[in-house]
């Protein structure tokens, strides 16, 4: 999948220009300065244009005009800039041009990444070592609070449970759905899979509203139950339950929403993997008398094991950062708080930057091993070529 292309060493093919030997690269200070400047120009122009023009910030202005300007500048203007910079680089001596041109192409993206992801990560880490208002260094105090005070421990506990339950349920149900769907005629299979996949198109907020009408609760005697679950409970003679306030279980009811959304993702990826299991192995097993379950258990699952791990990891990362569902459904009340939700409320409601930043760092630290594994796997793929 990640085939690495051979590098084109021959940057200057224009007639008359001398052939550059690889290794004779110019890495002087001047070249690095040129590289930096060419990388900075596109983001600088983007920012300057978007923010110096007052009319783009005026909420009263016609949105069509705003979007049109954004597209013209953000795509057309940026395109023109890349072209102009590329022309400029041709004016440089061949050797310098070869050294600078890649940064004309890749530089702007790297600068934007640096500003929106790398710098904030460092800054958040530093903020996490300071007090609520950020004017005093407090060492690891914020982290100590997170791992000792009960309100944060509840968030941590819930996040861990989410991370344990949701990815596994999604993978298991997704695998079951993919396997079952494989037994249907083609058209029915596609319809069935589209149906399970559909919630992937829906926002977490939208999905929460959908489930609000499942979990809706009315105190007995104050009208009919309009929530499906309570209607079923009362139809069987039970008394209605305020599902989102049942201690501990309410977390599970919230997880159902994410499972409803993410199972389709697991199903689609796993279904593709199942269809890739070589036919002859399955045939051979059947000739040897293996039944369906044995084929599934001993051939299908081991063959697609690496895909299962990738799907599980991807859903794990999504689950660990879940915010919208909890914020919309319960606001983190009744013991349903999770780390990402706690972080936002510390930051915006309680104005405690230090603890908020420390919670963000906790979010990052847990995905760090995945980050390292991804990079390692990527480098191995690159080495194989």
């Amino acid at each position, binding site marked *: 999948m990640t085939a690495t292309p051979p*590098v084109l060493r021959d*940057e200057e093919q224009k007639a008359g220009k001398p052939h550059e030997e690889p290794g004779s690269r110019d890495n002087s200070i001047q070249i690095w300065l040129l590289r930096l400047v060419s990388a900075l120009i596109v983001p600088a122009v983007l920012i300057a244009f978007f923010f110096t023009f007052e009319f783009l910030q005026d909420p009263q202005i016609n949105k069509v005009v705003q979007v049109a300007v954004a597209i013209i500048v953000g795509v057309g203007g940026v395109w023109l800039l890349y072209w102009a910079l590329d022309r400029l680089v041709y004016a440089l001596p061949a050797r310098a041009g070869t050294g600078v041109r890649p940064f004309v192409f890749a530089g702007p993206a790297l600068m934007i990444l640096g500003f929106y992801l790398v710098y904030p990560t460092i800054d958040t880490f530093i903020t996490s070592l300071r007090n609520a208002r950020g004017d005093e260094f407090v060492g690891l105090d914020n982290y100590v609070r997170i791992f000792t005070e009960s309100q944060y421990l509840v968030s941590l506990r819930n996040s861990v449970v989410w991370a344990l339950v949701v990815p596994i349920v999604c993978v298991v149900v997704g695998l079951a759905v993919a396997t079952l769907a494989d037994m249907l005629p083609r058209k029915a299979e596609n319809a069935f899979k589209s149906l399970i996949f559909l919630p*992937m198109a829906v926002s977490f907020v939208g999905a929460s509203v959908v489930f609000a009408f499942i979990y809706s609760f009315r105190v007995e005697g104050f009208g009919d139950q309009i929530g499906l679950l309570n209607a079923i409970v009362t139809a069987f003679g039970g008394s209605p339950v305020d599902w989102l306030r049942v201690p501990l279980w309410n977390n599970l009811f919230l997880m159902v929403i994410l499972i409803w959304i993410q199972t389709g993702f697991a199903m689609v990826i796993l279904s593709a993997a199942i269809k890739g299991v070589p036919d002859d192995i399955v045939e051979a097993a059947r000739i040897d008398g293996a039944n369906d379950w044995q084929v599934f258990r001993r051939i299908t699952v081991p063959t697609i094991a690496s895909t299962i791990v990738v799907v599980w990891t991807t859903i794990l990362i999504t689950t660990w950062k879940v915010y919208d569902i909890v914020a919309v459904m319960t606001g983190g009340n009744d013991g349903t708080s999770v780390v990402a939700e706690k972080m936002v409320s510390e930051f915006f409601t309680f104005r405690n930057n230090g603890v908020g930043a420390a919670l963000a760092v906790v979010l990052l630290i847990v995905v760090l091993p995945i980050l390292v594994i991804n990079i390692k796997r990527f480098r191995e793929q690159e080495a194989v070529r």
Partner: protein
Amino acid sequence: MTAVTEKPRAVALTPNGSQQPFTVGKFPVYLAILLIALAWVIPALGILVNSFRDPQAIQTSGWWTAFGDLFDASAWTLQNYSTVLDQGFANAFANSLAVTIPAVAIPITVAAFAAYAFAWMEFPGRSLMFAAVVGLMVVPLQMALIPILRIYTTFDISGSFPGLWLAHTGFGLPLAVYLLRNYMGSLPSSLIESAQIDGASHFTIFTKLILPLSMPVLAAFATLQFLWVWNDYLVALVFLGVASPQNAVLTVELANLQGQFGEGALNLLPAAAFVSMVLPLVVFFLLQRYFVRGLTAGSVKG
């Protein structure tokens, strides 16, 4: 194609098993499929039905009771939709479009140039920088909220669309560069080499040759990024919703409405939810192929 089979297979688990005829022996399979399908459909069906019911009826009875008077035209109404659109959701829909279109177009442009450089140019630190991009894919955007909002507030640009466009550009770039670079890098090098021999510059090769060939992956990323930005709640809330409510997008408006649950907003929620879902559902059905391709190729993303 599988003529060697010794005995007829009761249930096919093979890649080509999809053409199996219906048989009675598969009854448990069909039952399981039916149950799962129902579990997935019923929640959504509930609010779809509710959104077309009389506001009073939504408040007082469950949506399933509506099937009792399925053919009674007076039980169904578009009133909720018109109320919801009048109460700010038409404006929010426009805001969502205004946020999403540039927030998809800008990262694609910037990422395409970078991906070409990572795929076909040599420069010091190339593999190291690309490894960093791979790493950044899983960095939670929560890490960026506090510092970026601080900068935006300092320069008084929080609450503006451009601030959100650039933030979504930054958060979408790692996946975009990764997907595009892997795709561009898998194109045959002979193509690029022969263009160079003909005297084409990198810029010409990129625009005339690589970009047109990369359309499938550009579409895949565009679909992913569209759904991501349109459905995003947190980034829009932090950078737009708090500072300027009139710029609030659909997810933020919907969440606000949900916050008033039980205070008379109940009858508006289903229609509001569907207003927010209609465009992603259309995109989903039209571009499902690209969506799946993007998900498959990018499933290391966080």
